[in-house]
């Protein structure tokens, strides 16, 4: 039906009623909305249960990265210095988070489940150099600041071939 002149005045009633309804804004730092379990945040390098790093320095993640932000320099595992179960380990492993697009291809490419994307997204820094994360920063446990929604409710079951120790 075509609009009548009285409809403009009913619009005033709508705005007046809205004053008394509660706003739907979520105030961010006080209330953090829970993330889905597969949220792609900051990267993390994993270790085995016995303390050895999973990453063997194969550079498949660097090859898969569309933004070309991973730098891997491998080194032979010697008898005295055995870092990873395999022939080589990653001596230098750096990710430039200012270039990363958080697509998750590195996680999909890794054959050893060494790198995954965790749920930390509050990684702002004041200078671009601080955003280049080195291996020890990536190995460290991410600071849990944002709640994550329940995995059993919101996610499909973890497939058998993917371990997360």
């Amino acid at each position: 039906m075509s609009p009548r002149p009285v409809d403009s005045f009913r619009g005033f009633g709508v705005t007046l009623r809205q004053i008394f309804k509660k706003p739907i804004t979520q105030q961010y730092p006080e209330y953090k909305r829970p993330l889905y379990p597969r949220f792609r945040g900051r990267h993390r390098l994993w270790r085995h249960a016995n303390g050895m790093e999973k990453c063997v320095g194969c550079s498949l993640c660097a090859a898969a990265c569309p933004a070309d932000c991973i730098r891997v320099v491998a080194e032979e595992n010697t008898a005295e210095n055995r870092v990873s179960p395999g022939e080589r380990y990653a001596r230098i492993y750096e990710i430039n988070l200012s270039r990363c697009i958080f697509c998750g291809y590195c996680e999909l490419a890794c054959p050893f489940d060494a790198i995954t994307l965790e749920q930390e997204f509050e990684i702002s820094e004041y200078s671009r150099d601080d955003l280049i994360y080195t291996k020890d920063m990536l190995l460290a446990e991410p600071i849990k600041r944002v709640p994550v929604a329940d995995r059993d409710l919101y996610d499909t079951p973890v497939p058998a071939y993917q371990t997360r120790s």
Partner: protein
Amino acid sequence: MNEPWWIDAIKAVVIVNLLLGMFAYMTWVERKLIGRMQQRYGPNRAGPFGLLQPIADLVKLIRKESFFPATAVDILYITAPMVSAATALAAFSVIPFGAGWHVWHYDISGEIMNVSISLIFIFALGSLGIYGFIVGGWASDSKYALLGSMRTCAQLVSYEVALALSVLGVVLMAGSLSLVDIVERQQDTIWYAVPQLVGLLVFFAAGTAETNRPPFDLPEADTELVAGYHTEYSGMRFGLFSMAEYVNMITLSGLCVTLFFGGWIGPWSPLGPLWFLLKVLILIFLFIWLRATLPRLRYDQLMAFGWKVLLPLATVNALVTAALVVAFR
């Protein structure tokens, strides 16, 4: 009234400061209220409930780079916002906000200056303020500013006519052009909003267009012609233009209250300014409500509305009022 000049000076200082404070906190009220009407919070980070937001905005404006276009005409570019802001503030000097008081042995009248033609004085100052907008846009030496200022001035000049005609009914009923007399007459008879309802509606619509408020804010909306006449202004010069617009709004609300809603008339007479302030706040709430609800009028719709709707209505209102006043003399 035999009033020493220094009481007028004190009143002037107090009123100007109150107006400036009210301008700052009116921006806060507008942002919070429009936020609530749109189901969101307004600013609530700068201080409790965002009450320090106007201070934050002020500091931002002062610290901004106040650039100066190289080809702008210097003296006009700098004085244009000053003219607008000064006339906007000066128009408040004849609005009565209280009955007189008698303190010790001094008589303090309810307005800063009582002129016998105070209504014409306010309209004259409003027209002078338009000079600020014209000159500001032209002196910026930018095609968008020029076009925007031409649009603004065409709009303001058109709605001035309807504005002035709409108060003719009030003047005829009160028999005087002085705002003090108009308020005092409303004390004896009824508030003029009741017999002059058409005049009130025309005055309010023309006033909204006169102060560039939505829905008539096409010349200065952000999506149109960059920003109209204040495109090339930044920092505190832009703050002056913004202040001129908001103080114009407050002055127009004050004028509307004085002419149609009885000014300072309220239950207890010495508390006159309080009733005046309450009525002005209600009118400002109406302005903000209009902004939150209505979409913008296109420019040709705007000009058509001013000339083809408001002007005939105001004229007919004046004629009918004149006929009735003579008939019931």
